[in-house]
């Protein structure tokens, strides 16, 4: 395919109210993302934008068709189970080229597996694969066998990792800070590179991909109003996540179509259970009752109290309500109850002096951080929560945290100077929350933000891990839900549906659950 000389998106500065827009030309599509990708290395996805971007650049070994859910592969020619199901022999298709022009072969497949198995590759994704993959052996040019530590009847379902190019790395110990994370080499439909203000994805000719869009330009989303005006004016062609208040405007526009994006996202306020007064569960319970979720939701997302089928639904635990893991017996806390909150604070020994709560004779100032890109989806949420905390008698210090800082400091458990962190977690089919709540020991608790520790919770999470049957797994997570709703390492807020908007000139734009761009080959621009 001859690549077009697609221009870099032209930034238009159009006054304070309108901010930055971009131009879409020819078969170049520009779109607003929630933020810039933090890493384009599939081993180090920490945000949904990472997964979406990586889906353009890499091929996963197997994936699900976005429409029929059929399990497919673009790079596997055939496979067979070996060793009674404790292995799978894979024949890769021939002729596939990496974005640097080199041929893809079985050595790359085994390199990827070896990299995931290398304990010096500190990847949370790899760690999950280490639970069941034991090795990979190249048989011939395009043939390799992956072995497991147990029998699988259909291992293809589990082999959804992206292939990495052996020759792009010096060893199987792959660290997140390599240049590869910004300028990756894949076999996917697009060759990608990340800059300081955006990312560019250029179509790449290959035997197994026929992208019809020459270039995708990822723009960092700004003010949602600007996003909406820009897409209406064809300044960009897509918005990945349209905040609920802006959906009616786009829904009524003939030139723009709203599209569902199946993603399980829930929002939370993590509490630093190791710091000051927050170490006392009664204070955490008090805060849970001091926050008025109904008001927050109305102010930031525009959902009125009692509105049915709202895109934003309260939760009482670490799952969305539609999930079978959600324990429906645990009620949500929709409204504040200041009298009960006050009683709990007093019971915990806090003193009310001049309308401010004091702990050990000093006024409590809560340092509250929020992942900055969330402000686009729920405008001013940080301020509203801060105001509610003030109303409840706490001084507060509000700070927005960039996506990069969130990744390097918050996810790693280093942001212990914060008292509260406002964030969201997103899941697809795989809803394992163990790393969020298990104490940070060994390989466990990798995403435990404030190093929360509760032996009973740990035991429940281990029971989930050990569960042989579906009922045992479900019962363990129902129990976990009850435990964390009681102990409150998080104040659970809500789930929020994600809806995208694309100009109607963008055709064939099927959006995959979770990975989004799986069917990018069918996308085209123009009629």
């Amino acid at each position, binding site marked *: 395919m001859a690549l077009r000389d697609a221009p*870099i998106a032209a930034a238009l500065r159009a006054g304070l109210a309108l901010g930055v827009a*971009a131009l*879409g*030309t*020819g078969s170049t599509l520009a779109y607003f993302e929630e933020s810039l990708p933090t890493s384009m290395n599939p081993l180090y*996805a920490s945000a949904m934008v990472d997964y979406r971007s990586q889906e353009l650049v890499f091929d996963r070994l197997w994936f699900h068709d976005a429409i029929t*859910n059929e399990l497919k592969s673009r790079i596997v020619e055939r496979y067979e189970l070996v060793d009674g199901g404790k292995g799978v022999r894979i024949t890769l298709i021939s002729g596939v080229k990496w974005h640097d022009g080199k041929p893809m072969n079985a050595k790359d497949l085994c390199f990827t597996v070896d990299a995931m198995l290398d304990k010096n590759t500190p990847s949370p994704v790899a760690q*999950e694969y280490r639970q069941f993959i034991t090795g990979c052996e190249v048989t011939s040019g395009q043939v390799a066998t992956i072995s497991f530590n147990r029998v699988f009847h259909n291992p293809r379902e589990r082999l*959804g990792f992206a292939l990495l190019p052996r020759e792009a790395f010096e060893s199987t110990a792959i660290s997140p800070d390599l240049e590869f994370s910004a300028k990756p080499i894949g076999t996917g439909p697009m060759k990608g590179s990340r800059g300081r203000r955006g990312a560019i994805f250029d179509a790449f000719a290959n035997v197994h991909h026929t992208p019809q869009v020459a270039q995708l330009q990822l723009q960092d989303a700004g003010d949602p109003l600007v996003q909406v005006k820009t897409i209406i004016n064809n300044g960009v062609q897509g918005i990945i996540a349209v905040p609920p208040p802006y959906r009616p405007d786009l829904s009524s526009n003939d030139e723009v179509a709203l599209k569902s994006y199946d993603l399980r996202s829930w929002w939370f306020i993590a509490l630093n259970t190791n710091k000051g007064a927050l170490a006392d569960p009664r204070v955490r319970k008090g805060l849970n009752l001091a926050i008025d979720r109904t008001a927050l939701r109305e102010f930031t997302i525009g959902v009125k109290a009692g509105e049915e089928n709202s895109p934003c639904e309260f939760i009482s635990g670490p799952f969305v309500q539609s999930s079978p893991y959600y324990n429906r017996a645990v009620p949500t806390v929709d409204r504040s109850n200041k009298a009960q909150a006050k009683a709990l604070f007093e019971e915990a020994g806090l003193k009310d002096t001049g309308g401010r709560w004091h702990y050990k004779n000093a006024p409590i100032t809560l340092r509250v951080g929020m992942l900055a890109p969330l402000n686009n989806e729920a405008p001013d949420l940080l301020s509203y929560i801060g105001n509610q905390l003030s109303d409840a008698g706490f001084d507060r210090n509000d700070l927005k945290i960039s996506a990069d800082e969130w990744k390097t400091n918050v996810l790693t458990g280093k942001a212990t100077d914060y008292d509260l962190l406002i964030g969201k977690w997103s899941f697809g089919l795989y809803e394992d929350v163990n790393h969020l709540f298990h104490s940070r020991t060994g390989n466990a608790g*990798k995403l435990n933000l404030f190093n929360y520790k509760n032996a009973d919770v740990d035991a429940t999470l281990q029971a989930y891990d050990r569960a042989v049957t579906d009922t045992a797994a479900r019962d363990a997570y129902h129990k976990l839900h009850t435990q964390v709703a009681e102990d409150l390492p998080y104040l659970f807020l809500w789930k929020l549906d994600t809806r995208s908007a694309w100009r109607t000139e963008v055709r064939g734009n099927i959006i995959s659950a979770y990975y989004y761009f799986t069917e990018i080959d069918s996308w085209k621009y123009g009629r």
Partner: protein
Amino acid sequence: MMKASSIRCALAGSLVLVSMAAACGTDSPPPAEKDPAGVLSAELLATTWQVRMARDEARAPFESASGWALHFQREQGQALQAFASSGEAGARGLARSHAELAAFYRQAALLGARAARHTFGEARVDEDPLEVHYLLAVDAAFAGKPDEARAALASLPPDAAAEVVKAAAAWQSWLDAGAVWPPDAALAGLAGPGVQVMAGQNPDGGPHPQFRLTERSAEARTVELGDPTQLYLLSRAHEAAAKAAVPADAAVIDLFLAPWSLPAEAGPATELAIPVDDSWIFAGFALSGADLVFLADASTAGVPAVQRHLASSPLAAVVAPAIVDGQVVPDKMLDQAAWLGQQVEAAMREAGGGEQSFHPPFARLASVAALRAAMIVADANDQYRDAGVLRVNALDRSVEGAADPVFLISVAAWDAGNRNALRAQELVHRLHRRYPALQAARYSLDFLHIRTSRNAAPAAPVH
């Protein structure tokens, strides 16, 4: 290197509003072209309920009846009561509400059966209770595979739970009698008060779960499951209530239900000797009475039905240009649907003497109806994936007044048939509050999700 056009745009952008950007880019695709002639002839356009109801006096009978207001707000329970208390005047409203519930629960039954098949069929594990074979039998019966149903029932353990034994015996008697659809007579003994429908009532399906089985594990945990048979019986009871409300419209009701029937059911006659009252189509997804006939025919015949009904059915006329070489082309159909909406809205303006707030939502119903019609044609035309693309596009547009519970649950049933529990669960969760009987399908769907998720490729939680 930046193109000259882009540079011009960048410069322009520094001076003017973002709207300038739309004019930039020399190789931008042309704007969406409207079909100048419209997608429907003036004659067919005039037959659509949207255009006929553009005049206030035409809508007055519906707007003055509280039952209809509740019906269109999806308050089915209250709508049924309002219609039932309106006597003869509310009879057709009552019939339509019951018919929609019949369609809804037919698809819910399919959803439950398919979810059970994928969970306890090829993905069955040793620890599953052996009684799950009963659910496989029900799925096979719904799918029109009596031999598979017999085999599944034969696999039930001799010491099966009493509730399962009773239900299995009913299906077995139907199989023994030759497996001629419908199985209602054989299943009559299974219909508890929760699925018996009196005129104007919407029962909740009875106590849940229907089955409490024991897992074959060391812990011997209890497995709670629902019986899709109950949803089927509830559907049939609503269907009977609809026909009892207006016996003269029985043939219309058969057509109304045809697109939502189970695979085992034979299609209805595809001709109609009686006129279709507006009560059956107003604010619905058939634009005219002829569309009901077309959709029933298309649900089994596919593309040939389009040609057969081209002259009389607006929806057939809209779908026809999107058929190329005997195949429905989704992209063309998306254009057709959009243009139909624009044409209908313009015609309503003209007929009603100006712009009215109800025009856009009525036009949206026309667009969604067109996509759904094409989906039905594609499904029957063995274009499984294309039908799925149309289904997803129709779903994306099924918001506010176009959020038809029957269509939503049908998408969930389709997803369950694809082992895709993620979206199905969202849809079921959304509908469950108003349709508590849906719980009978939810048990299996939940297990489908857990089973597929625990076998899925791992992914770390991300923000």
